[in-house]
């Protein structure tokens, strides 16, 4: 058992698709919350196997895409602090702020380092004690515990020059926020690795309160197809429950060890999501006892971000109200080589995924 290849068999995926076809009587719109699911759906051509009754829309589950322009501008402002090292995951490098991207900032001379793990930033801080290392904490619940671990480590080591700009976001409350709006989604393909940390339990209010079935899915093509089958079965049978398809990666209660360290280091606050706005209880800030490691005091108070370029529909796309090809800029002015909106920047942004995998006329209509 290698835990991945076994779930990629074309025949297996096809047989699940056949069962979806048998089961599906009505029209259903399902949202894959997570950008990694969007990529899997396109990479493996899953949409072409689905019956007409199942429509998939992408959600706001790409941390880079939902980071507000103000927050990007905050990162860029940190680059201007003398002797600063800005340590970030690679996904952030090409996202446009009001004036520049981090990659452009680096080209202008800023010390921006792409790292793989939060502990790489700890290492940078240890090696450069005379300089401040600003670690950009971005990502959902999957990534937040690793930032928390780094903060705790910095405290243990007395690394006062290690600072975190926490842009972490929490997922279940934002699904609720979407449903309070105009989101015409019948069920959710829920993010597997977020739920490896938080468990499936926090999705209960979506299923019971909003009456929208939730299935936590893995990322192999068999996993995604099986999750769609489970959702269609629930909808056709009039059920609305939280189910786990990704049994090998997720438990109902989650990872108590990771949740504990998140609670130890972070407080929950509101957070601004691009395209959605400020959502209560979806952000994480460092708790008072870790204030020495908070980068926020180094960010200039007055950051005036410019509005999104005219025509950019990233907001509508992130809310699942529009598909990327319907944006007037898509593929014309906005391309991965010259992105205008964040959804075209990130490799997991829905626009970039559509552009990469689905530019032909046939696919555009899906």
């Amino acid at each position, binding site marked *: 058992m290698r835990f991945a290849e076994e779930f990629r068999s074309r025949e297996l995926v096809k047989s699940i698709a056949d069962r979806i076809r048998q089961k599906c009587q009505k029209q259903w719109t399902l949202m894959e919350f997570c950008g*990694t699911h969007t990529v899997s759906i396109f990479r493996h051509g899953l949409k072409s196997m689905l019956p007409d009754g199942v429509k998939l829309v992408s959600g706001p589950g790409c941390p880079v895409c939902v980071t507000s322009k103000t927050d990007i501008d905050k990162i860029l402002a940190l680059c201007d602090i003398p002797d600063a090292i800005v340590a970030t995951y690679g996904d952030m490098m090409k996202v446009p702020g009001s004036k520049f991207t981090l990659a452009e900032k680096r080209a202008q001379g800023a010390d921006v380092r792409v790292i793989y793990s939060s*502990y790489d930033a700890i290492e940078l801080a240890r090696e450069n004690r005379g300089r401040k290392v600003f670690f950009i904490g971005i990502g*959902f619940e999957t990534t937040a515990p690793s930032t928390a671990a780094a903060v705790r480590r910095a405290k243990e080591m007395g690394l006062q020059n290690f600072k975190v700009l926490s842009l972490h976001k929490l997922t279940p409350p934002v699904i609720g926020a979407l449903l309070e709006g105009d989101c015409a989604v019948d069920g959710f393909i829920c993010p597997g*690795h977020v739920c490896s940390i938080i468990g499936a339990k926090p999705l209960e209010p979506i299923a019971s309160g909003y009456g929208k079935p939730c299935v936590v899915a893995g*990322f192999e093509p068999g996993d995604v197809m099986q999750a769609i089958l489970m959702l269609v079965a629930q909808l056709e049978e009039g059920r609305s429950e939280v189910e786990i398809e990704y049994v*090998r990666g997720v*438990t109902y209660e*989650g990872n108590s*060890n*990771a949740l504990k360290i998140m609670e130890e280091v972070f407080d929950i606050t509101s957070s601004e999501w691009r395209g959605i706005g400020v959502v209560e209880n979806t952000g994480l800030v460092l708790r008072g006892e870790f204030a020495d490691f908070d980068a926020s005091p180094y960010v200039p108070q007055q950051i005036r971000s410019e509005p999104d370029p005219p025509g950019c529909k990233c907001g509508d796309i992130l809310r699942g109200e529009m598909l990327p090809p319907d944006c007037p800029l898509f593929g014309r002015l906005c391309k991965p080589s010259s992105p205008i909106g964040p959804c075209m920047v990130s490799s997991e942004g829905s626009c970039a995924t559509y552009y990469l995998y689905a530019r032909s006329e046939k696919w555009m209509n899906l």
Partner: protein
Amino acid sequence: MCLAIPALIVEKKGSWAKANVGGIVREISLELIDRPADVGDYVLLHAGFAIHKLEKEDAEETLRLMREVFG
């Protein structure tokens, strides 16, 4: 960004381990894992941290469900 991939632990020392990730062996942290993992175990690896121990039985259960005809 929320990608986590299966990695095989090949060496372990306290809360650190070496894991084979698609043929490349790299150092990973076991600090955030949900249950104890040892050499020979597969874990889900995300940004240098093992976040979940994978169990063969769980994977087989899903495969069995997927293969069920007319489930």
